[in-house]
């Protein structure tokens, strides 16, 4: 069993707290994505799990074994690095076989595993080449192959796709997903790209400033973000936020944004008189000339920018000095400067406390 547990883990570099009281458990066989902006502590967390950094305090467990003082090579892990870290002076074969050789694996067994991995990743023709003779995508596959050949309990991946071009990244993303299904090992994948996180992760852990913000399935994070940061980080384009004050009598409480009074239902009853932030994703703002009004709050807007994306339009809209983004059908007839009547989907409005930035359910 290869669960991974962080138990109240801290990491300080001098005065900087890189990882702040991280506690989370990764299930056996799960693909967990650690995501967050640069400097949020996700890579440090991964390096501590690998044994490349020592935590300042707290425990890290792989399975039931506490690995705080275990050397990287004895943690039964394999890691894929952002720049692949292939040994330049060794052939592809030797790169994949090196870790096995050091572990004293019999030669025949090494050969079998390298051949197996080469088969899975389509590296058969490249085994005798040096890394410098490979393309970026091929190097990436060798790096993954080196990890798989070790047959570790846990795979660690540190932004393994970020050096690939956009097209190859999407392709490799799918391949990594397939490999994970096939190998079925616990995988922890670090990225700053929320699209990668959403598409690959069984669960996603969002970090910011060294603190774990939320852990959940992609749908959890998208539909029920726990705070403003997660709400803004997950989803592209980002969620629209509107400052509002809750007004009205209990049962009829509404968020007054200045350009509209957004009905909030009973959950806002205790909030009357308080400042809140309303969140609404761009896909939940509809063109009312094409959709019925029921369940939607009509808002008169002016179109500022129209971005044509082929399958949809992104509209930058303005209402009473506030701007926000809407995703509408590609054949919507509008242009910059035109007026557009849109509907806010009231079932999808998220509510956040302005002071604490926490979600209010």
């Amino acid at each position, binding site marked *: 069993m290869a669960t991974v547990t962080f138990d109240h883990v801290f990491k300080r570099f001098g005065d900087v707290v890189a990882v702040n009281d991280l506690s989370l458990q990764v299930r056996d066989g799960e693909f967990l994505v650690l995501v967050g902006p640069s400097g949020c502590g996700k890579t440090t967390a991964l390096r501590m799990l690998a044994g490349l950094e020592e935590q300042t305090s707290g425990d890290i467990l792989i399975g039931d074994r506490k690995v705080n003082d275990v050397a*990287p090579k004895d943690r039964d892990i394999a890691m894929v690095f952002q720049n692949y870290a292939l040994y330049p002076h060794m052939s592809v074969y030797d790169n994949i076989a090196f870790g096995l050789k050091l572990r004293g694996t019999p030669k025949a067994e090494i050969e079998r595993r390298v051949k197996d991995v080469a088969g899975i990743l389509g590296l058969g023709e490249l085994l005798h080449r040096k890394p410098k003779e490979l393309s970026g995508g091929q190097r990436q596959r060798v790096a993954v192959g080196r990890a798989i050949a070790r047959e570790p309990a846990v795979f660690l991946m540190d932004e393994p796709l970020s050096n690939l071009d956009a097209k190859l990244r999407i392709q490799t993303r799918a391949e990594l997903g397939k490999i994970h299904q096939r190998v079925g090992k616990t995988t922890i994948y670090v990225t700053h790209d929320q699209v990668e996180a959403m598409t690959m992760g069984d669960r996603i852990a969002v970090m910011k400033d060294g603190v774990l913000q939320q852990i959940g399935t992609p749908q959890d994070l998208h539909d029920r973000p726990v705070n403003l940061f997660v709400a803004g980080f997950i989803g592209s384009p980002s969620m629209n936020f509107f400052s509002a004050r809750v007004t009205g009598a209990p049962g009829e409480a509404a968020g007054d944004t200045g350009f509209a009074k957004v009905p909030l239902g009973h959950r806002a009853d205790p909030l009357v008189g308080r400042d809140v932030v309303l969140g609404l994703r761009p896909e939940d703002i509809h063109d009312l000339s094409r959709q019925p009004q029921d369940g939607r709050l009509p808002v008169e807007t002016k179109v500022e920018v129209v971005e044509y994306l082929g399958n949809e339009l992104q509209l930058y809209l303005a209402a009473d000095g506030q701007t926000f983004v809407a995703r509408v059908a590609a054949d919507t007839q509008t242009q910059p400067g035109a007026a557009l009547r849109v509907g806010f989907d009231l079932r999808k409005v998220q509510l956040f406390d302005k002071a604490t930035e926490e979600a209010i359910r």
Partner: protein
Amino acid sequence: MSAESVVSPLPGRRVRSRWPAIGLTGVLIVLAIPLIFPLWWMISAGFMGAHEVFAYPPRFAPETWRLDNIDEVFARQPFGRQFVNSVYIAALNVGGTIVVSSLAGYAFARIPFPGRTVVFVLFLSALLMPLEVLIIPLYILMKELGWLGTHVPLIVEPIFGAPAVVATFVMRQHFLSLPIELEDAARIDGLGRLGIFRHIALPLAKPALATIAILTFLASWNSFLEPLVFVAGVPELMTVPIGLTQYVEVYGEPIWNIQMAASSLSVVPILVVFVFAQRHFVRGISRAGIQG
């Protein structure tokens, strides 16, 4: 389509002129003369008669190529023995310097320890002291150790002295340029500190190692003051540079043609080393420069 139209240049396409290349080559040849002429003079004078060297108008090639001069080089003193001395001392210097400078360079580049920067600056400051200042204390030290009149000082001093400081600096710069992830990957693969040095860092340092090998070899081969001080007076212990000064007649004047013949022989090992390691040498120097 006719055969002509296939090979003729496309209309409007500029044919590159060969004149700039010819001009550049001409300039380089002229600039090379001051460098090549003394070498040529040394070689040709080595085959001349004693008086031919001073002939006026000067001769740029001997009238007859006197191979006897070579025999005389070996007849006048144990030049063969001195040659072997220089070769084995240089070889041990190269080997020792590679071991010391690569280990020290790696430590300075990769192992964090308190005061690392201070120690490194102190270490570099050794370059500021000229050998002439140190030679007397060194002489006393070697005397105390009982190493005078042996080759030991010529082997030990350069390995831990100024030539090794330069070599350590070159190695440190090289190791700094190695991506840290390579070492992380090696640690996960199962290597310890020395294993990483041996299996990852060192094989990737070949150009830098070739550079320090050549620099060390040259420094040792040309070294004059130390052998003069530490093994003076015993022809069998002398190295080539000291031996070259011994081709003198009774009044202390050089016997030019024999000395030139011996000098010509003394540059052969350097040419051999350069021919084999030139590629690495240039690459190593340019890398060290970029990383500095």
